[in-house]
């Protein structure tokens, strides 16, 4: 019988020591450059839409 314990691999941290969200960076790096740009544009235009809706708030 093999008594050797399976090697435990620590999960990758969610944040770096200086507080950067590494989950977001891993997600961005999983995309193609075209998809990264698309994500930026959707985000920006979403923000601008909300700003326009609240222009008189």
């Amino acid at each position, binding site marked *: 019988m093999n008594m050797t314990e399976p090697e435990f691999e620590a999960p990758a941290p969610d944040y770096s020591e200086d507080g950067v969200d590494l989950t977001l*960076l891993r997600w961005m790096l999983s995309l193609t450059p*075209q998809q990264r*740009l698309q994500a930026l544009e959707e985000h920006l235009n979403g923000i601008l839409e909300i700003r326009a809706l609240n222009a008189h708030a």
Partner: protein
Amino acid sequence: MPTHSPSALLRIFAEAGVEFIVVGGVAAVLNGAAINTFDTDLVHARTPENISRILGVLEEIDAIYRMQPERRLRPKESHLESRGHQNLMTSMGHLDLLCTIGRGLAYEDLLPHTTSMELGSGTRVLVLDLETLIALKQELNGDKDRLALPILRQALKLKQAKDLLPSEG
């Protein structure tokens, strides 16, 4: 409401045969950094042929200076030949045409530090690499630059670790 479309801006310049390098926040995003930016920064080659191509595109996208937009001032050949920054608003969003960046680095100086990236439909653009973006931000050391630096450094670290992994193909 104005539309911000860095991809449309990059495509129209690439399709017109303009020689440029994507720098700043859009370059950071293309390199995989999760940051926000509301303008597209490009460093252009300052040859007469290239400037003529740029002026053609600027006309097409109705580019005017962001400063005093009511005067609808348009950049001229001499502005694009200078060493300054042209901060413009266009029908596709804010566009900054930078003649030089950092300590006077021009298109030719930055070329060795770029990567060619595919943006779909066969469009390829030259993008400043993360190492150089970090070096430039460290040099500038403004509040905005210092804020972005930890994200850029972590993106570079993850990217380098990813490049070390065996290919899945």
